[in-house]
């Protein structure tokens, strides 16, 4: 085991580190940038913004995505908003507060200097997006509007209805389109990266499969950037897109990039509960709903049973018969506690038997109070004295509709119930992965010239991500961090010239990719890829989900190994190599999840504490809250691949907190 160097600049106060560092790193002159190629894999907020910015700077960018357009990357599905320390509301926000909230929200397991930098550039992101024509919500004076998200006491979240991710991604996509038109980005749609190519220890290219023709292609570059998102689909069921996968991240891990904190995953508290075994994915209901929605279950078990059996409706229960358990347990933050806390609280109530649907895994998210409140306010604004009950509801409903209309519509289409009239049912689901490829302050992995940005890396959210911070981090990395730090590395490459793809390293990488694909097509096994993916997902959810313990994790490791062995013996992939073959695409992705899942469990087993999204049942306080162990675990676990997940070697990056005092996180 070695200690990792994070390359955080020494000296300087936290507030000055990034600006000083930027002023002193190497630059590449504009004429030389024309001779340098950069590969960007993934075109979500991180990859899209990086590709556009690098091309604007003058580099030749080769961008890849598995979808038919960069605009479809899963960042598009982010609903609620993006944080920025603009303090437009004058409620006392500042870079420091955003930094502080993020470190605290991450349960003191993120890298302090990275988080401060994130807060520092957050304001620029909003400026940039507005300049691109992103239609953020505005107030009647024409200025930008804000809302609140969990885990903070200010309003700093900018939003575009419930489609903030879509609008930000379309902004980055438009910036990419401008560069594609100029020929500075070569866009490879419907392509999947299947391996990275290293030459003399440096990342110099990738092997990609053209998903339409099946052709295996070689692409070279002076640096490679991985922006392929998170690994939430290791659970099979998640709020990720069906195609979201860890293959790019896992392949680079196998080629020398350390993988950090895989056990830090976010189970999002407000998702639509599952309804049956056929289910293919889960749908998120934005955290922004917790601004106005109140979460509850019945106080009395009789009412729970009556509701489950259809004898009572939730609207029949009086205020006294409801247990607003978040408001009860966490009076200071109430319904706006961070996601990990809200999820565990829902699990606690459901485990205790108070779940409100047939599966016993659902709680209510109720807008009745908000409709009343807004209705009365509107009546006053419209000079309606003594409004009728119906009028108040009508006016209040209109406000809720304006704020969350598309989310309510989405819910109604899936569940076939009207959430304006009856409370929504929600339950936690896998949503985001804080863990990922280890990167230093420059966002470079442990492989030279290989970078990792956005959700695919690990650094900014610690053990738990606050709402509206993923969009911020993706765009910060892509627009404002990587374009600077990558120049420092590429400054040494100005005389290298074009990288040839006719080398033994490319030969070897292509050969191993082809061998794996050949194996799948020729195996002619007995079970479909999904069969194995579902098996893995079940193990992950039951034993590496919202609560974990030693016994379960040990079992998980064993069971995943068994599933993986069976997969390689009996998986069945129809069709052929040189065609559009979706089963073949899935097979490669699931093969990687089957390895990642084991490392995940191993990491969770190693981390003998509870922090953020990682909750070990052995480590709790007397009142059932997570119990961190700063003496023994204030480090990043970065795993080195040595041939098998079970033999991965642990490296530690000790976390230093100079500007922040480590405290027990309390939202009470």
């Amino acid at each position, binding site marked *: 085991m070695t200690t990792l160097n994070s390359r955080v600049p020494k000296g300087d106060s936290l507030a000055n580190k990034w600006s000083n560092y930027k002023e002193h790193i190497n630059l590449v002159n504009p004429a030389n940038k024309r001779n340098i190629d950069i590969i960007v894999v993934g075109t979500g907020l991180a990859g899209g913004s990086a590709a556009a910015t690098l091309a604007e700077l003058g580099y030749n960018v080769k961008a890849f995505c598995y979808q038919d357009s960069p605009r479809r990357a899963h960042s598009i599905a982010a609903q609620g908003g993006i944080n920025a320390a603009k303090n437009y509301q004058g409620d006392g926000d500042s870079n420091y507060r955003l930094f502080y909230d993020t470190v605290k929200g991450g349960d003191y397991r993120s890298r302090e200097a990275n988080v401060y930098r994130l807060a520092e*550039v957050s304001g620029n992101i909003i400026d940039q997006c507005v300049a691109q024509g992103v239609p953020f919500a505005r107030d009647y004076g024409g200025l930008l509007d804000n809302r609140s998200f969990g885990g903070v006491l200010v309003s700093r979240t900018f939003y575009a209805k419930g489609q903030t991710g879509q609008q930000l991604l379309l902004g980055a996509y438009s910036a990419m389109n401008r560069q594609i038109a100029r020929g500075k980005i070569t866009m490879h749609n419907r392509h999947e990266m299947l391996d990275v190519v290293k030459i003399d220890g440096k990342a110099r290219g990738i092997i990609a499969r053209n998903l339409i023709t099946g052709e295996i292609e070689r692409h070279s570059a002076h640096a490679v950037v991985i922006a392929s998102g998170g690994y939430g689909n290791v659970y099979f069921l998640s709020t990720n897109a069906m195609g979201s996968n860890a293959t790019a991240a896992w392949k680079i891990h196998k080629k020398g990039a350390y993988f950090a904190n895989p056990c830090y995953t976010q189970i999002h508290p407000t998702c639509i509960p599952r309804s049956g075994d056929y289910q293919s994915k889960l749908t998120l209901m934005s955290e922004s709903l917790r601004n106005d929605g109140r979460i509850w279950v019945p106080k009395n078990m009789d009412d729970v049973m009556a509701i489950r059996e259809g004898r009572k409706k939730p609207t029949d229960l009086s205020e006294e018969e409801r247990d607003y358990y978040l408001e009860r347990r966490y009076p200071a933050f109430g319904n706006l506690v961070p996601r990990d806390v809200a999820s565990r609280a829902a699990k606690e109530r459901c485990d205790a038997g108070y779940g409100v649907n047939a599966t016993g895994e659902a709680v209510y998210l109720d807008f009745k109070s908000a409709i009343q409140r807004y209705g009365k306010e509107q009546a006053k604004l419209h000079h309606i004295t003594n409004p009728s009950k119906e009028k108040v509801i009508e006016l209040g409903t209109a406000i809720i509709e304006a704020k969350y209309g598309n989310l309510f519509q989405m819910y109604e289409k899936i569940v076939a119930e009207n959430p304006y009239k009856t409370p929504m049912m929600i339950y936690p689901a896998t949503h985001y992965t804080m863990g990922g490829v280890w990167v230093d302050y420059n966002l470079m992995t442990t492989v030279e010239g290989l970078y990792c940005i956005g959700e695919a890396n690990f650094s900014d959210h610690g053990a738990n991500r606050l709402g509206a911070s993923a969009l911020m981090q993706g765009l910060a990395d892509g627009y404002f961090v990587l*374009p600077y730090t990558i120049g420092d590395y590429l400054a040494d490459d100005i005389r290298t010239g074009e990288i040839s793809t006719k080398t033994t390293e490319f030969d070897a990488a292509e050969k191993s990719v082809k061998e794996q694909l050949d194996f799948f097509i020729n195996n002619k096994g007995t079970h479909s890829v999904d069969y194995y993916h579902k098996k893995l997902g079940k193990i992950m959810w039951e034993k590496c989900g919202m609560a974990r313990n030693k016994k379960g994790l040990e079992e998980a490791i064993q069971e995943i190994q068994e599933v993986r062995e069976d997969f390689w013996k009996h998986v069945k992939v129809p069709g052929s190599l040189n065609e559009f073959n979706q089963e073949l695409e899935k097979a490669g992705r699931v093969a990687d999840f089957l390895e990642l899942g084991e490392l995940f469990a191993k990491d969770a087993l190693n981390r003998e504490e509870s922090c953020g999204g990682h909750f070990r049942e052995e480590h709790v306080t007397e009142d059932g809250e997570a119990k961190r162990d700063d003496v023994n675990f204030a480090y990043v676990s970065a795993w080195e691949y040595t041939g098998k997940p079970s033999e991965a070697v642990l490296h530690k990056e000790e976390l230093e907190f100079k500007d922040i005092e480590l405290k027990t996180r309390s939202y009470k």
Partner: protein
Amino acid sequence: MNLTLKIWRQKDANDKGKLVKYKVTDISEHMSFLEMMDVLNEQLVNSGDEPVAFDHDCREGICGMCSMYINGQAHGPDRGITTCQLHMRMFNDGDTIYIEPFRANAFPVIKDLVVDRTAFERIQQSGGFISVNTSGNTQDANAIPIAKSAADEAMDAATCIGCGACVATCKNSSAMLFVSAKVSQYALLPQGQVEATDRVMNMVAQMDAEGFGNCTNTGACEVECPKGISLTNIARMNREYLKATSKG
């Protein structure tokens, strides 16, 4: 419920293609349409047949990837949704469901129900952007107030997901709703004014070059659009186009 499916199967772009009949049984009314397709594909894989290729990704109606033409309607028999949000409760036991790809000359079939929509990409590349570099020193986001009504209207146009249902639905295979949504978003905002003339001219030229038809004001696109993009946007684009051409 038990259903008969008649699905368009086409090996690749050069194949002629045909409708093939399949049966699925015990389909729950709570399933989404694509989950029903998953059941069919699992069945096909297990029996040694090739599964049906179809585009899908987010499965929550926002990525714009899914693109089926179901019983003669883009995204099937419900309004304001994409195929992935369509639920089986919209169908009855014993129904026969026809499933085809989005059809238009500018959307060639890649395989089965998967079509090539890169024509949309080239239209966006021809002008669907505001030319502003990332610098970190653009003016403050609140420097120019924008009327809430304009911002909201721009947002309504900007919600287009680029799925292509408008093209598939239009008897002329016109892409006017898609193109006008982007033109409108920028036309409604002060940031978009500087390049307004070039934008509309270039995007319309590219749209024509891709072989999309023209608009004859039928309005079917608006009805089938999963995001409710309004026909008003087409009127606005025509106005922008007229303004641009009359400037000379």
